């Protein structure tokens, strides 16, 4: 739960920063491209983490990182187009992510109980 809250707080914080920092006028040097670059970096970090790590919890964190990267991109565009749909959608996204985190961590606990390990490679039951 604590982790989920943290993530929520983190993303909220980022959202507010973006909101302040992205007026259409070129008041500062921060452009849409910068936001998108941040989102992209977040996504790639998450992706690399997901692909390289074997610990289920870390992998889960990485997926959430990718999730939030998508949120950043959504808000950046929302701000860019002066359309609030993206921001609204990000709120939904955050909510869903919270619920999902709760579910996922519960599952991870169950899996851990089965094999006493958090290694993702232990689980290959879907092999064709």
């Amino acid at each position, binding site marked *: 739960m604590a982790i989920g809250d943290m993530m929520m707080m983190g993303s909220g914080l980022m959202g507010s920063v973006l909101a302040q920092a992205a007026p259409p006028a070129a008041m500062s040097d921060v452009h849409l491209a910068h936001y998108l670059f941040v989102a992209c970096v977040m996504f790639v970090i998450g992706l690399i983490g*997901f*692909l390289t790590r074997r610990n289920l919890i870390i992998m889960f964190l990485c997926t959430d990182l990718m999730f939030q990267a998508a949120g950043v991109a959504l808000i950046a565009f929302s701000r860019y187009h002066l359309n609030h749909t993206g921001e609204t959608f990000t709120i939904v996204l955050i909510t869903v992510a919270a619920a999902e985190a709760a579910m996922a961590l519960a599952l991870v606990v169950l899996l851990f109980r089965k094999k006493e390990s958090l290694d*993702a*490679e232990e689980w*290959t039951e*879907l*092999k*064709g």
Partner: protein
Amino acid sequence: MMTLLTNTHGLMHALSGAALAVSDEAGHAAGHASGPVAQTFAAGPMFGLLVVALPLLACILCGLCAMGRVKTKLPAFLTVLCLAGSFLVTLALYLQHHGQPAGTAWIIQGFEWIRLDYRQMVDSVVQSRSFIANFGLYVDSLTCLWMLFVTGLATLIALYASEYMSHDVGQGYNRFFAAFSLFVFSMACLVMADNLVLLYLGWEGVGLCSYLLIGYFYKKPSAVAAAKKAFILNRIGDLGLALGIMLCYVHFGSVEYKVIFEKCAPYMASLAAGQLDQIPLIAQFIPLCLMIGAFGKSAQLPLYVWLPDAMEGPTPVSALIHAATMVTAGVFLIARTYPLFLMSEYALPIVAWVGALTALLAATIGMAQFDIKRIMAYSTVSQLGYMFAGLAVLTSVGGAAHVFTHAFFKAMLFLACGAVMHGFAGQLDLRKLSGVGSMPGWRVVGIAMLVGCLNLAGFPIITAGFWSKDMILGEAFANSQMQAIGWILLLTAGLTAYYTFRVYFRVFVGPKHYEPGDEHHGDDHGHDHGHGHADGHDEGHQTSGKHGFHPHAPGWAINTVLATLAVAAFVIVPLVALNHGGWVKDMVGASSAQFNEKAAYLIAAKGDLHTKFFGFDAHKAMMVVSSIVGLIGIAVAFVLHYQGRTTAATSKADALLPAFGPIAKWAQNKWYVDEFYNAIVRMPLLALAQIFHWFDKLVIDGLVDFFGWTPRGLGGSLRPAQSGEMHTYAVGMAGGLAVMAVVVIVVLM
């Protein structure tokens, strides 16, 4: 039971329908151009159907006996009774037919067996066609001749068998007589059929009975193999016959003799005019096909090998089926369809050569055998060759007369051999028997054997065999095209006289000596072990039966039959001897086997029917020459196998054997014909069958399975992609994303 009903139904049907069916045909002359006696067709008396029906009745009754598990000699008596009835009916039929004008052919309608009516466009005109094969009888003098000796001998041999088979009383006895009666029924169908398809029914029917009876001792593998061999080799011939029937149908539009003979008439006219090229090739193919059937059934080259093996059957069967009646079916077929055989310039010469070569080959094998029953079998093959040659050198009378006389004396020879076999525990080796004829109780057998041997050897004047053989020889030499055939047959006659009397001098006269066979009852090797005669075993073999074996002299039934046949063999002499063929000539001359001697076949073949034999009339010269040849054969046998012989096992002939080198051994091994056939026909066929079997399994079914496995195989090749590991999937997704990104970028650029 149901068959009986069907048959009765047929009778009723026939009684009502036959008269109007045939009466309008009466008086229509068919063979007007073909022979001295025109053939006319008329409806025959219905009682003729009894000739066929009575043996069938016997068969059904024997079948009922088998169902009722009868354990007495009842089936034998039923069979003898029915067959005797059949003989009497035949006799009545003959007498009534005899009163008709010569050349009358009666057609007795039974019931419609196969009938198809249809329409067909020929040259834009719709014509009606029909394929008709009735269960109808064709009674002419040839039929009468054949049926008289078939039913007569069948009755006698059934009587003989009632004693001979007595050790099998019970289911085996029932089975034997059922098949025996069925055989007579089939033979009657064969001989009396009014169309080729019904003949084919009889033809295969006798083949079936032959199969069942050769394999009578079914626990003995050799008997089973012999039965199978007989059936299959006959089937090869049957295929030829079937094709001949089809050709007949396609060409003449009918398989009925009446129609065929009528439609042959123009061809006969062409023949008489010397225009053989007027006869289309298709018609000339017919006899070539039919003769294959005849060669199969009558055990001629190249299909003769089944007959010697057929001796595995009980001896009465050998006597009736494999000597007197069934094997003459081929001769009958040719005699019956003689006009067809005259239509081809190749047919009769082929028959002549096949017959002559078979006669010689079988005689050489017969000379070297030791099993007396086998010797008789080979002599049957040889004599059948004679009959074929006889028909083919244009003496259908001689061929038929030889069938007639041969039926009597060969049946007698077999029955005498059977009596020996019955009495000496299956002993058939002529090296182990001697002087049987002078043993107490064996006098009748000895005399019958002597009479039979004299006939077979063609002893001059007093034997019927002499007269019938002489007709064939004389005609062969009289025909300028057939001189070579004549010489082969003459040589064969000498060999025949030798090997016949070899048997007689070794087994029936000379010092008394015997070693019993190893079975209680001759034929049933193999199935009787364990409760056979104890005295047939232990040292019984080596000590000429001194250890308690007593020859078991024949009883009244066997003796009566043998005596009757011995008398009959002399009674029939005038029937074939008087006036160049006598009664048989009248019979054959008024049938379909007649032909006009002036017919153009001879012109076409550039032949001459009155060739001189070294300046003498061939017929008269042959009387003398064949007598001398026969007597020389007998004399050689006398010197080698009788004179001074003191033991059963050896004779003076043994000393001569080295002079022949390996030839004697080859002849004793039947010239390795069986081995040859096995190597060039059976083994390749078996190999082909194995190849097909594996081809089917691997290639054809393999292809099917291949198509079945293709989807599964395709799936299998993609299977590793589904590793079940989360990271693999993730990499796949990332990779896919990357690819999509690259594609998007490329497209956008």
